[in-house]
């Protein structure tokens, strides 16, 4: 299946602003991130902590909804889903 991925802010140093990713049916957000990190290894530092878990402040939205409120990294993906990755800004 294909999903669309959009990246924002610092993540754009490692990912295209918008890209279509081919991934096997039944994949989760975790599978998608694994694939993205394989394609762009420096992305791991931005997304994952030293234990390999997602840094909790990186917002991942599936079709506009934060995966923190769905099933986290186990959130399932479907054909045509839009996944947005954005680390929030904090300064003022």
């Amino acid at each position, binding site marked *: 299946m294909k999903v669309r991925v959009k990246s924002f802010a610092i993540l754009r140093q490692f990912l295209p602003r918008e890209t279509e990713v081919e991934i096997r049916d039944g994949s989760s957000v975790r599978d998608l991130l694994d694939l993205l990190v394989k394609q762009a290894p420096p992305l791991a530092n931005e997304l994952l902590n030293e234990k390999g878990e997602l840094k909790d402040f990186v917002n991942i*939205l599936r079709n506009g909804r934060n995966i923190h409120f769905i099933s986290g990294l186990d959130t399932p993906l479907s054909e045509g889903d839009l996944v947005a990755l954005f680390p929030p800004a*904090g300064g003022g």
Partner: protein
Amino acid sequence: MTMLSLVERERYLRQIPLLGETGQERLRDAAVLVAGAGGLGSVCAQMCACAGFGKIRIVDNDVVERHNLNRQVLYAARDHGLFKVDVAARRLRENNPWLSVEPVRETITRESIGGLVCGIDVIIDGMDNYDARYILDDAAFGEDLPFIHGAVNGFYGQVSSIIPGETPCLHCIVPHPPPPGDVPILGVTVGTIGSIQVAEAIKLVTGLGKPMAGRMLLWDGLMGEAEVIPVARDPSCTRCNGRGVAP
């Protein structure tokens, strides 16, 4: 609501065609809390004063330092060591003699916030940390006030208008804050984001346009691009207490 004087009509000659005299009167009768007098706070307070908000309460507990001057447009080199809100009040009054400015030398805490939002119509986020932003967000929902969130990092920035009863709260939009600490910031980024925040405040007070409610603008100054993404409520959020937009 009293009518605008002749001198006020002259001052706002170029924007009354946009806002209408009623819109201009609504701004004059509105009180805004600018929370923070740093990069975003400087720009927001300046833009609110120019636009003709009647009252600005500006809150900050810091003094002007040299490394503020790349982005905190209210301050000059001679202001080094002075309290930001005192300098800000002087500068804002110089810009707009009709403006009532209330400088408050305080840190925003759960204890101080009640007094800070008293009599306020709109809260504008000029903070540099999420602990204080969450306090403002909770006060917005407690007092039923719009809260215009803005934040910056380098060339990047974000804005969203948080409206109790209509939108998710900040806890829903940013459930986990980025690690605290100083981030690199450019004056042009706070200029962009702060101006958009005040545009939101003007729209909310005058009723013009469509607020960025339930949406977040993500600005990328390196690409010269903005994107607006939908933001949704956490169905289990206890902070906005069922008063945010339906999930």
